């Protein structure tokens, strides 16, 4: 069993009227079964309202299943006695950087989690130092969070989770409110943590460019898991992705369009290098004098 496991998970949002009578029930997650291995970098894609954020909130007990089960490291999220262990194991980063930073100074915010866990003072300092180092924010440790850019704030939030020594970090659209520079910053930090510290990363997003380096991509639609595979496998199904209100990076789209028009290109091209590698030989054939395969 992997670090995160969901079995036939169902979650209903229930709306009640003033008399506490059920007014409307909407199913956000419908019979979702999923197993995520330790050390993987997994991306969950889906349009707004596909149920992906609701799923994220199931993973550290902020929401509890209506039916079915979620296990984190073998602990059932409905078991009250495990709740703090679950939250410590599966740390969570949210969308709005301003609404999750509690401290008035960067380092104090990073120390907030360990303080809650009752970690001794010396150990808190050690963890804060290490976590800030791991996300590259040591230089800002004494700054006010209000003076940081969006990307830096999110890195502080990640450090705050890291200081609880989690095995897994779940990020619920951490880049939705950031500019392109901030987005790159956050994604690079996550890959770094995944590679160097062996942290399992579960990245929830709707930006396609952010997931091409993931180990595994999962697509959700209408509360269901509809696609699951490597980025290459998922991105080779451009048409299907579009029906789920998603998109592909421009390189992938161009390659797909060219293939549809009959050019002999491989499936699921993700990077510019791959596209060049496939396209240049064709060009060379057509324009043997002008085109050179190698340039300095």
């Amino acid at each position, binding site marked *: 069993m992997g670090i995160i496991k969901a079995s036939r998970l169902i979650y209903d949002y229930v709306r009640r009227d003033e008399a506490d009578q059920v007014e409307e029930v909407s199913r956000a997650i419908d019979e979702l079964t999923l197993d995520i291995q330790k050390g993987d970098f997994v991306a969950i894609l889906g349009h707004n309202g596909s149920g992906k954020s609701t799923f994220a*909130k199931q993973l*550290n007990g*902020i929401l509890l299943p209506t039916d079915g089960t979620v296990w984190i490291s073998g602990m059932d999220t409905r078991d009250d006695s495990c709740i*703090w262990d679950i*939250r*410590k194991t599966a*740390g*969570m980063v*949210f969308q*709005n950087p*301003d*609404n*999750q*930073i*509690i*401290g*008035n*100074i960067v*380092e*104090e915010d990073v*120390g*907030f*989690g*360990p*303080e*809650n*866990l*009752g*970690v*001794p*003072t010396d150990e*808190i*300092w050690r963890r*804060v130092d290490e976590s800030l180092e791991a996300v590259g924010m040591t230089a800002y440790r*004494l*700054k*006010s*969070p*209000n003076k940081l850019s969006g990307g830096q704030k999110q890195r502080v939030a990640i450090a*705050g*989770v890291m200081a*609880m020594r989690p095995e897994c970090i779940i990020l619920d659209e951490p880049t939705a409110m950031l500019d392109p520079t901030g987005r790159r910053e956050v994604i690079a930090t996550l890959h770094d943590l995944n590679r160097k510290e062996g942290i399992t990363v579960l990245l929830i997003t709707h930006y396609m460019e952010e997931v091409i380096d993931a180990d595994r991509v999962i697509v959700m639609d209408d509360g269901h898991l509809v696609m699951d595979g490597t980025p290459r496998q998922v991105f080779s199904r451009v048409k299907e992705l579009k029906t789920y209100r998603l998109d592909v990076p421009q390189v992938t789209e161009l390659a797909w369009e060219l293939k549809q028009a009959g050019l002999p290109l491989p499936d699921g091209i993700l990077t510019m290098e791959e596209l060049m590698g496939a396209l240049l030989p064709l060009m060379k054939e057509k324009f043997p004098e002008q085109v050179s395969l190698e340039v300095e």
Partner: protein
Amino acid sequence: MIRDITLGQYYPVDSVIHRLDPRTKLFGTLVFIVSLFLADNLAAYAVATLFLAVVIRLSHVPVSFIVRGLKAIVVILLISVSFNMFLTPGTVLFQLGFLKLTWEGLKIAGFMALRLIYLVIGSSVMTLTTTPNELTDGLEKSLGFLNKVGVPVHEVSMMMSIALRFIPILVEETDKIMKAQMARGADFETGNLIQKAKSMVPLLVPLFISAFRRATDLAMAMEARCYHGGVGRTKMKPLKYARQDRIGYLVYAVYFAAVLAVRAVL
């Protein structure tokens, strides 16, 4: 104008005042405030001025920055000064219609203004040199005895700390909302009081909704980081008295004695 309020802001430099234990600073502020109410002659104010000047100097906070904080109280200051000046009976210096400027009034108004200004400066020096977290930690620890009578000291200090963090965020947000509504022709300036109050609705509704949203988000984020009240919590920066704090308390004793002595003698 709201940006000019230095009370509650932190000025991030290193100084001996910054390094003092927050409890020492809280107690010192208390001593200073009490001394202001005891001081009733110029000599006593001279002692207070000296004390304040030395503390400001040691704090490495620019005087101009501290003085800017006074802008916020100018109106209160003017009102109370003019009331005292004109409405205190005594030797008339100058008369304009029913307004009589008296010597006694002038004196009381002067002390009153000085007291108010020193009060604000004194408390700003404390907040400028103490991070909000230290401040709330200091309050939490100093007021810990209230726990026994059922006051949730930890919760209240956590609330204060969070409030301080969100003040600048909400100030900025207010500015954005105002602009968004002005772009739709909203007018926040002209009109009588009732019209003005009405024109605040498009500003206050989005602001409240956003604040509630932030509050629920924050609660979720705190829970996700295992916050469950003050029980079993450790501190990253536990409060510990050091040598400078003992010196601090000694200085307070000397200062307080000096004010009392000057008051008694002169």
